């Protein structure tokens, strides 16, 4: 009975810690976004809808990050980690239109070739994706290993 109560307390303490960790990470991530946005603000004037697009990315990314942290210690955290990596890859591909951005303003058409940037970012996204898969495999391996008596 006493050990059950201790287990319950430990679980609650662990959950609260995970919530605190997730909150701290979300706040830090948002602070980094806020800091980087301060520097990117000049182009927001030139590209309509950029802030909305970036904010949507940040919101989804933070939600997946929080869910991943809340499900820490279970296999689901790797699902969310993988989903986060896939979201980054898909978001980059769709939002940057394959790396060739075009815009028209008062008869002037502008073309920005971001293919190099997209390739590097996609590779980093793929590395993150591979890392999540490896983590999941490693976790499954550790669970499957017979525990020493």
């Amino acid at each position, binding site marked *: 009975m006493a050990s059950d109560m201790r287990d319950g307390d430990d679980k609650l303490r662990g959950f609260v810690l995970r919530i605190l960790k997730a909150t701290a990470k979300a706040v830090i991530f948002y602070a980094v976004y806020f800091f*980087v946005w301060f*520097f*990117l603000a*000049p*182009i927001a004037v030139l590209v309509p809808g950029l802030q909305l697009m970036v904010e949507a990315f940040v919101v989804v990314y933070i939600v997946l990050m929080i869910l991943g942290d809340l499900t820490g210690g279970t296999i689901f955290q790797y699902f969310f980690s993988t989903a986060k990596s896939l979201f980054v890859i898909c978001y980059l591909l769709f939002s940057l239109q394959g790396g060739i951005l075009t815009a028209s303003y008062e*008869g*002037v*058409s*502008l*073309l*920005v*070739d*971001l293919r*190099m*940037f997209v390739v*590097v*970012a996609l590779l*980093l996204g793929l*590395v*993150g994706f*591979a*890392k999540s898969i*490896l*983590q999941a495999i*490693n976790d499954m*391996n550790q669970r499957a290993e017979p525990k020493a008596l």
Partner: protein
Amino acid sequence: MQLSIRMIGIATTVFWVFLAAFVVLAVYSVKDLNLDFGQPVAGLDADGDLLISLPITIVNRGYTNLEAFRVATQVMGSDGAVIARGSTSVPVVRRDSSVVTTHNVSANLDDLLSRHGSFLFNDTELTLNATVGITLAQLVPVEARANFSVPWGAPLYDFAVGMPAFAPEEATSMVVSVPVSFENHAFFDLEGDIRLLMFDSSDRLVAEGGTALDVAQHTSYSGNIDLVFATSALTSSGKFEVYVHAGLFDYGPLVIPYG
């Protein structure tokens, strides 16, 4: 394996930070880039071709060098034929430095006006395709394209040769006075001369004469060209040939029958 995965995580985080820093640098390269296009100057080059020069000042106060700056222009007629083109490139504009260059577009007006006579007599719209490109932060090519309509003013707009007025001058000779008028809608002054040749019905030269031209841009000209010829050479029909010689072009013959 746990350590390897952790190292992959740290490495990717470091690379993401580098990538974010690179984006910020690229953005600031644009923000601190100043392109100044001066007033275009039209003139003649050593070959006598029309030369339009556009001074360009590039000031790079960004954090990275700018590469492959290029300006290309193409002037096309209403039929899509290319009339003039020019391109200018600057390989590198180093950070905290400025470069002054001149973009030249040249056109052989003589060749142009002889091939497309309508440019001499009719106002029209020319299409100017302009492309400006630059590579930011040594990795991000940016290109801007624009199409403009540029009005073309004909130097001999509404050119007209009026009815020749014949009058006796002496017992054996006559004088024919041919009124000539036009409007110079061009962006340049017309300096040169206009020559008139008179042929009889058997295409034999009967008389010739001319007058000097000095018609400022956007002004009209009206004058008479007098030709003196022997009365015996006058036939009931024939033709006049008009030749216009200006500094920028030669045109002729413009055949006008009479009789």
